[in-house]
């Protein structure tokens, strides 16, 4: 599971474009992640501000 820190997220949408299973969506200012997430942590690595955190 990926957690989004809303204090940090600048809703740039960049993470959405790197998710291999299309689990992420940006709606206005809110990133949502659906159940298809495979915990690859690519979005975590990409995020320019460190707003995403993996479970590990």
């Amino acid at each position: 599971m990926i957690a989004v820190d809303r204090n940090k997220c600048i809703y740039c949408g960049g993470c959405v474009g790197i998710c291999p299973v299309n689990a992420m969506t940006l709606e206005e200012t809110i990133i949502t992640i659906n159940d298809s997430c495979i915990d690859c942590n690519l979005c975590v690595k990409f995020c320019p501000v460190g707003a995403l955190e993996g479970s590990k």
Partner: protein
Amino acid sequence: MIDCLIVGAGPAGSVMAKEMASRGFETLVVEKRQEIGAPKRCAEGITLRGLKYIGIDIHPLGISGRIKGAMLYAPSGKKVVMEGDEMEGYVLERKVFEKDLAAKAIKAGARYMVKTQAIGMERENGAWKVRVRGMDGEMEIKTRLVVGADGVESKVGKWAGLKTVNRITDYHSGIQFEMAGVNADEKYIHLFFGRDVAPLGYAWIFPKAFSANVGLGILEKAAKMKAYDYLKKFIEEHEEFFKNAQPIEINGGGVPVAHFTRMVADGVMLVGDAAQLVNPIHGGGIARAMHSSVMAAEVAEKALKKGELSEDILIEYERKWDEEYGEKTRKLMKLRAFLEKLEDKDFETLADILEGEDIYSLTQAKMTFFLKKLITKPSLLSLAKKYLMD
């Protein structure tokens, strides 16, 4: 059923909308944001040459800064200046510029729905049924053609079965503060290189009317911290520019610096960032996004008139694109691979041996002279090796 549904009202989407509507096709644009163009994910730089080449006029209100060249800084601060007609450009005000493009499309007859997100699509009897969600709930739109102008977040391509997922090795992590009070020569854009400045990318200052876009892009594989941390460090270490500067806006985004996706499927065309159409060296994508739409519309017109929207017909767009940009992009990818091997001392050497015009030639994918320069001096041999070896 409509002729053309465009997902996304960025530069690619609105230019596509204008091109299609002005040809008399029933065109609808859905944009998920409630305000077109904001917040920007962009440093807003564009060259006059690029604009002229694709024949796009910009309303003066969309222009915030006028640029006559670029200053490039090696890690030590050593500077190379690039000037000349080719370097002239604008720093845009994107939220005005994008609304200007939308207004032009609307004038040509396109319809727009903002705060309306495409959430899925299915193929049905040779057409697409696209589901959208907006303030008035969900609805389905039937269309003969879907144009994915949905930027790096693109889902249209994925829904159509295209492999558009970006790779972390080819996708810059970008961050930017728009700042007031920056003290930098406003006739130039300023670009900063170095492993500790912006690993495998660069930092920039793009001056605007009463502010400047200050940002950087990095590749994760060489980064020791987040892009945001590099930006804070960059600002701290450059008092000469930022002593009295304060942020008035924060931006970020992903920049696809490699193009590998297919651009069409049955009844589907991808334009702009959705198809990774960005210059792999500097990450500029506004001009290419608009140009791709101009090309896509020419092919879409023929296809819609024939009533034949299969991948085999639409592929002509991809071919046109390749003809125009394929070779250049491949060379620039080679240059990018070279740049990614450089250490700080190499940047210093390059700042010594290259003039502004040389760097311009390199960005235009003219490389032969560069290799000649490298192999004539023994001291440059290690650079030549880095250049020649893949």
